[in-house]
């Protein structure tokens, strides 16, 4: 239970930090912000790896893990690459 409270504290503080950070992002970068945060949400890959890589679980768990790894990797690779592509177009004259 103690750990849950700590996780909850981390969650709430991160929400506040998120608000402080995001309101400072200028509208011109809102699209890269969406694709970039999308890549960050691909951090679910970490959980997916644990599900896909366990040997003791039933087949179904491994298959779900495989799907999760695939989805999350698309997010990570696709998200960071497309964000980088967009951001490198923003230039000052």
């Amino acid at each position, binding site marked *: 239970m103690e750990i849950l409270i700590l996780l909850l504290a981390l*969650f709430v503080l991160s929400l506040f930090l998120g608000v402080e950070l995001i309101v*400072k992002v200028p509208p011109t970068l809102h*699209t890269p912000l969406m694709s970039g945060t999308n*890549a*960050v949400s691909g951090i679910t890959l970490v959980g997916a790896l644990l599900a896909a890589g366990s040997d003791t679980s039933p087949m179904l768990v491994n298959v779900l893990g495989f799907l999760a790894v695939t989805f999350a990797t698309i*997010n990570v690779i696709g998200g960071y690459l497309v964000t980088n592509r*967009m951001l490198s177009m923003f230039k000052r004259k």
Partner: protein
Amino acid sequence: MSSSIVNLVYLVAGVLFILGIKGLTKPSTAVRGNMLSATGMLIAVVITLLNSEIVNLTYIIAGVLFGGAVGAFMALRIQMTSMPQMVALLNGFGGGASLTIASAEYFSVLNVEAKSFAEFLEPVALGANAFGLGAVGQVTLVSIGLTILIGAVTLTGSLVAFAKLQGLVKKNFGLPGGPLGNALLLIGALAALVCIVLNPSQAVTVLALVALALLLGLFLVLPIGGADMPVVIALLNSYSGLAAALAGFILGNTVLIIAGSLVGTSGLILTKIMCVAMNRSLGNVLFGKMAAAGEVVDADEIYAGKVTSAQPDEVAMMLEVAKRVVIVPGYGMAMAQAQHAVRELADSMESRGIEVEYGIHPVAGRMPGHMNVLLAEAEVPYDKLVEMDRINPTFEETDVVIVIGANDVTNPMAREAEGSPIYGMPILNVDKAKNVVVIKRSLSPGFAGLPNPLFAMDHTLMVYGDGKKAVVEMTTALNQS
């Protein structure tokens, strides 16, 4: 690898994500920020792979290779005009990942090797504390249920958003009963969630939850039309983050919670910005209702005999003598792929010493920042892209405003016609400029279905036709004069 070291590395990854988003607060530091964020991702993944719980690499390698190839292909091939579709798909995959992780976590505790589907559905004998001791077990089950619910809604909702943006689904339709049908689906899903928490041994309730949530995602987005997509995409972005944070509670994983909540707030803030820019409440957008139309405005009455049309070369003559020009782009510019032509026109004007800026409405296009990305692709410097609040006071000193493919965001009825569905929506006050040129295919109404009195004003010229062609002709005429 001790779990303290793993968690310390996760902390470093979390800090890198935060620095990465901080980098996005300025265009000059944004590329570096994105790199920092990607580095955080890399070390989080590597330290997880070194974890001793991971023994079977087959599924991991297959998933990473397949997902990596699909992701890289999409990212490198997508056209900038199609970026809303790309972001919609990425949101969906994020939701899908959380959905499958939560399901995998549930079934790994259930630990059934079923030979048939019927056997699979049979209740399993579970210890009272299979998901954790007392309250911890209940919190884990609630997290699993909520992650499945939000993840599945995000998955199908985003796929529908993608299909709509791509033009695969053109009709807007919902369940019979509208919001009521969706409310019933949500109540059903929540009931399944409660059953899971009370009695986790029945796999069938989890399947029911997945099915209901997938349907809910479908029917939430199907009724919503094109111009409301910026809100939908931002909201689904937020959901995908929230689902990731909840998955962090299932796994007790700190970096998932930090990253997920950052994404969740980011999407929520963008949703709010979009709603404010349309002067509509979130509920109003989600349930597909426009404000009740007051008096019916007759388009013919507004336009009859008052609309002046012009040819591109006449506009060029007007531009020749201008000192300051503002270009107002909308979704029509993206449709016509006219961003490069627009930049060439601006170059031609600037070489004559004319000051050119771009006025960007927050909901121009199909997602937050859509116009900015398109114009950046056409190599327009970002300091020329001016947001609504800063460009509005300058229209009175502007000689010519060129509106290309935008409609509702320039409609003066939003300012003046009390009782109009768009009354109160913040608009670009282009009608205050000395001359307005509107490039448009016809006088057809925009998404709000309203006539635009701007088109009938004395100082407005309509240039009918394809946006790209009209702009190219203006540039040619201007260069020849």
